């Protein structure tokens, strides 16, 4: 039992702590409200836009300029046979003062007939609202049962929102409990986006209409809506994050949501913003806060209190439970009266005064800035071996030292100073303390950092031999500047303290004077084509060509000597064709070498080659036959000649 209770209380505590942390990140500023008003004040073209404009402006608390003209417009555009038209006219005329829509019995019957299970939720909503605005009686219980039937048939978000709106126009005696429960179910359907936004996937308009409907109904039955504070803030973020609206209906829904969130009986979100930057200084010692509702109307009944104010580093509170005073709708507090040191402070502010306030604990970061003064600026030239005592010159800000200081390789140049708060005299350590040496002739500048020691005394020493490289060993007169800055300083300083003449050993030739040529165009690279290979002289080539062709002569001579001849050349067509084809193939080889590619050559070779082959085949066959017949003849006739020889020989 006890562990369970302990766990439960821990859970509640964590939830409470969590709810305390959430504050609105998006809200309407006065310019946004003015823009919303401008959108709703556009001249209207039909009854629907007239309804949105008139009723929307009335929610923002603004009366329409020419009420009579608008009333005339409404009356002339009214179509008594359409429920929708009657709804727009009735609601708009209700918002205008002194505008009465004439109602006939037929109109009333039409409206009453629309209240049934068969009409859509929007039709029921329109007819009930019209009846209520026109002051006609209606049967609340019938409406409730029709709505319940409608909800069970169509379970979507817009239907339920319209049901909530309708229920808020009914008599308080009706049984609205079931419809009231729908608020909780609908709230469960909202999408939580990274803990900051809470909206329906149907969009901004649906979310805004839900808020206005839920609060309208809750106010009507005087029961707190089941929305947690965190959820209310997340809804505020979703609805007021969009600062320009696509359509009149969207602007209208945002206006009605804003009105219901600033005027209902249960939850009023509080928007706290600092007027201008949250920065305090001696010239501006007051921290000013604007505390408004979502419509940027100041909450004058609130009382604003600083619960604690502490620096970001230490947790000790400088202020505790200090109230703000209200002056011309702005809450202000003189923080400088507590004499804070400069820096950043974390403020925890509570807004009380109304139990309806939501998100009434705010964390603010406040900057306290101050002016800095430089004390005891001492410049000296110290000998390295410290045989001669340093000569110290004191310089007052913002004057410059009269004499210039000389430092060469035997001496160091030193500078010490203190930085204090102008008013309190407290020592300061700003973020940026630089010593800049600027060579006026060459334009070169070198910057060093001055560091404070443990007693917050700033020291800077320049050793010429050590720092040779930074200066590129260029001797000359350098102007010494002290540069100081910080976010909490109101007066950043650039002070030409003195001139220093530096002498370096091994001065390099001033060829390095020009600025480093990092960004000048580089020399152009000329593309070098591949050198063609060296060829042997033409004489040599020609000589060797002749030499290589010479064995052909030798061949001819040898063949001649051997007696090779073409006496056996038969002039049959295939022989001629074969030789022509062969010559053509050799010619094709030459043409291939000079003009053609492999594919073309293969093509021609196929043609010529096949012709040559056929002709050659024929020719060789003929030759073979001839040879064979000759050899056959010889082989036959020779034995015969022996046989048939005259017997004389044998004898």
């Amino acid at each position, binding site marked *: 039992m006890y562990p369970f209770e302990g766990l439960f209380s821990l859970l509640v505590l964590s939830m409470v702590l969590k709810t305390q942390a959430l504050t609105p990140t998006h809200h309407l500023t006065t310019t946004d409200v003015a823009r919303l008003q401008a959108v709703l004040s556009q001249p209207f073209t039909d009854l629907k836009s007239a309804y949105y404009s008139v009723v929307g402006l009335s929610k923002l608390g603004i009366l329409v300029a020419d009420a009579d003209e608008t009333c005339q417009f409404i009356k002339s555009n009214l179509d008594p046979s359409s429920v929708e038209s009657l709804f727009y006219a009735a609601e708009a005329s209700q918002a205008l003062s002194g505008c009465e829509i004439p109602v006939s019995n037929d109109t009333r019957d039409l409206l009453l007939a629309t209240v049934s299970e068969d009409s859509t939720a929007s039709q029921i909503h329109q007819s009930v609202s019209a009846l209520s605005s026109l002051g006609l009686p209606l049967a609340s219980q019938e409406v409730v049962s029709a709505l319940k039937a409608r909800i069970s048939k169509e379970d979507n978000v817009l239907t339920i929102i319209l049901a909530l709106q309708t229920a808020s126009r009914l008599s308080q005696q009706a049984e609205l409990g079931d419809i009231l429960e729908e608020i909780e179910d609908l709230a469960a359907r909202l999408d939580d986006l990274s803990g900051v936004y809470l909206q329906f996937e149907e969009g901004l308009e649906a979310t805004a209409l839900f808020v206005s409907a839920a609060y309208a109904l809750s106010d009507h039955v005087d029961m707190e809506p089941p929305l947690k504070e965190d959820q209310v803030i997340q809804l505020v973020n979703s609805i007021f994050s969009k600062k320009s609206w696509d359509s009149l209906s969207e602007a209208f829904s945002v206006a009605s949501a804003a009105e219901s969130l600033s005027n209902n009986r249960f939850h009023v979100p509080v928007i706290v913003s600092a007027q201008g930057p949250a920065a305090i200084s001696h010239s501006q010692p007051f921290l000013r806060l604007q505390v408004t509702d979502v419509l940027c109307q100041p909450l004058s009944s609130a009382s604003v209190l600083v619960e604690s104010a502490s620096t970001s580093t230490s947790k000790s509170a400088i202020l505790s439970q200090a109230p703000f005073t209200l002056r011309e709708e702005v809450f202000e507090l003189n923080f400088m009266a507590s004499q804070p040191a400069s820096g950043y402070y974390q403020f925890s502010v509570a807004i009380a005064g109304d139990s309806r306030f939501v998100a009434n604990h705010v964390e603010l970061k406040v900057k306290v800035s101050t002016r800095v003064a430089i004390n005891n600026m001492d410049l000296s030239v110290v000998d390295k071996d410290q045989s001669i005592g340093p000569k110290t010159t004191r310089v007052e800000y913002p004057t410059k030292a009269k004499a210039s200081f000389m430092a060469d390789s035997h001496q160091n140049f030193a500078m010490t100073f203190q930085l204090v708060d102008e008013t309190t005299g407290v020592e300061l350590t700003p973020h940026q303390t630089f010593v800049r040496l600027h060579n006026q002739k060459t334009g070169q500048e070198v910057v060093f950092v001055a560091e404070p020691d443990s007693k917050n005394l700033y020291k800077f020493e320049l050793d010429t031999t050590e720092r040779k490289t930074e200066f590129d060993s260029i001797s000359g007169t350098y102007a010494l500047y002290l540069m100081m800055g910080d976010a909490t300083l109101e007066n950043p300083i650039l002070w030409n303290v003195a001139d220093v003449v530096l002498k370096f050993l091994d001065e390099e030739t001033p060829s390095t004077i020009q600025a480093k040529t990092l960004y000048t165009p580089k020399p152009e690279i000329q593309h070098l084509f591949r050198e063609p290979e060296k060829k042997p002289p033409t004489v040599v080539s020609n000589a060797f060509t002749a030499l*290589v062709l010479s064995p052909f002569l*030798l061949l001819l001579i*040898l063949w001649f000597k051997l007696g090779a001849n073409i006496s056996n050349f038969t002039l049959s067509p295939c022989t001629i064709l074969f030789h022509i084809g062969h010559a053509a193939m050799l010619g094709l080889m030459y043409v*291939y070498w000079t003009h053609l590619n492999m594919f073309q050559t293969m093509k021609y*070779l196929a043609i010529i*080659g096949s012709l040559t082959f056929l002709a050659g085949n024929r020719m*060789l066959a003929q030759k*073979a036959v001839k040879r064979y017949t000759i050899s056959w003849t010889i082989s036959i006739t020779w034995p015969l000649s022996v046989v048939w020889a005259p017997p004389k020989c044998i004898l």
Partner: protein
Amino acid sequence: MSNSVISVISRFLEEYASSTPNKLKVIDAYLLYIMMTGALQFLYCLLVGTFPFNSFLSGFISCVGSFILAVCLRIQINPQNKGEFLSISPERAFADFQFAHTVLHLVVINFIG
């Protein structure tokens, strides 16, 4: 030693001149021609350089290929080898020689650049 070499060579030449048929001698002359051409090309390459190396290669391989094909033709035509080439008549050998040369020269011309 040199005496015997000289006598062997002279005897060989005598035998060659007398017993080789004329047809074969014609082919032998052709072989000699091809060999000299190839040798001269190689000599050029050694002396002057291999600058168009692909041309040198294609020329040299043409000589070598032609030499080989001519040797094949000589072997197949030789009447003394008739027993080994029963199915290949001299005409057929010549036709093969022609066809192989066509292919060889196609490749050579392709490579000569």
